[in-house]
């Protein structure tokens, strides 16, 4: 359950990170691949090495989607409808991986924002990422 204050905080954070979307997204993905090698199986068709154009563009896509969703969290199901369909019928990524990427996004944010990633910001962001992941998996079955 996100309070209005938390929703504003989340939107603010993603707004401030949009200029470095590529950097944050790629960093989170690299962390996930390093800690949870099983997640790499979904990327066998791409070059996911550090600095690769595939990695950067994919990372950017993910962060921009998170930023877009954060602009109106109450409308997540509407905003994410196309992505819901893609993940359910085309990508079919096991939803456990959403949790793994969410954790790595939090670590990436923590490395980037340092002390500005306060406990309150962390709590709000964790809730947002959980909600985002849940909506993404809604059409799976």
């Amino acid at each position, binding site marked *: 359950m996100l309070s209005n204050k938390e929703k504003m905080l989340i939107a603010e954070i993603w707004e401030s990170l949009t200029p470095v979307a590529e950097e944050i997204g790629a960093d989170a993905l690299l962390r996930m691949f390093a800690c949870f090698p099983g997640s790499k199986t979904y990327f066998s068709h791409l070059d996911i090495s550090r600095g690769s154009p595939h990695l950067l563009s994919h990372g950017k896509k993910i962060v921009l989607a998170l930023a877009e969703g954060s602009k109106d969290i109450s409308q997540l199901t509407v905003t994410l409808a196309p992505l819901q369909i893609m993940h359910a019928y085309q990508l079919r990524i096991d939803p456990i991986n959403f949790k793994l990427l969410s954790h790595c996004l939090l670590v990436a944010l923590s*490395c980037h924002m340092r002390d500005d990633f306060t406990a*309150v910001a962390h709590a709000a962001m964790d809730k947002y990422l959980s909600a985002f992941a849940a909506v993404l998996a809604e059409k799976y079955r």
Partner: protein
Amino acid sequence: MVQWSESERTIINGIFSHLDYDDLGPKAFSRCLIVYPWTQRYFSSFGNLHNAEAIMGNANVAAHGIKVLHGLDLGLKHMDDIMGAYAELSSLHSEKLHVDPDNFKLLSDCITIVVAAKLGKAFTPETQAAFHKFLAVVVSALGKQYH
């Protein structure tokens, strides 16, 4: 038995040799109570945990955070038998404290995030992977004596 590469041992020992327990212990533990409020169920004797400010200013929380972070030293000293090293603590958490072992993972995630904030860019994906592996083995060892 868990196998550790030389690189992993170096990374893990490196993190702990520079760790400020008095700073990160309270940060990690208070973060766990704030981000996962249901974990407060085990600490009703700690006083005021009503909101983030109260938790972060609570002396009992701070002291306990330092204690718990030092609990990782056991694993560090016995990296080749982490299961054995935590057998007693595992029984304690199961039989006396009645802590749901899922909570160990929640706290270990918070420890990772506060270490990440402290180290910044130095907390590379490779560093995170080694640290994560260490914490995962400790978490597993702490859950071993539950039956």
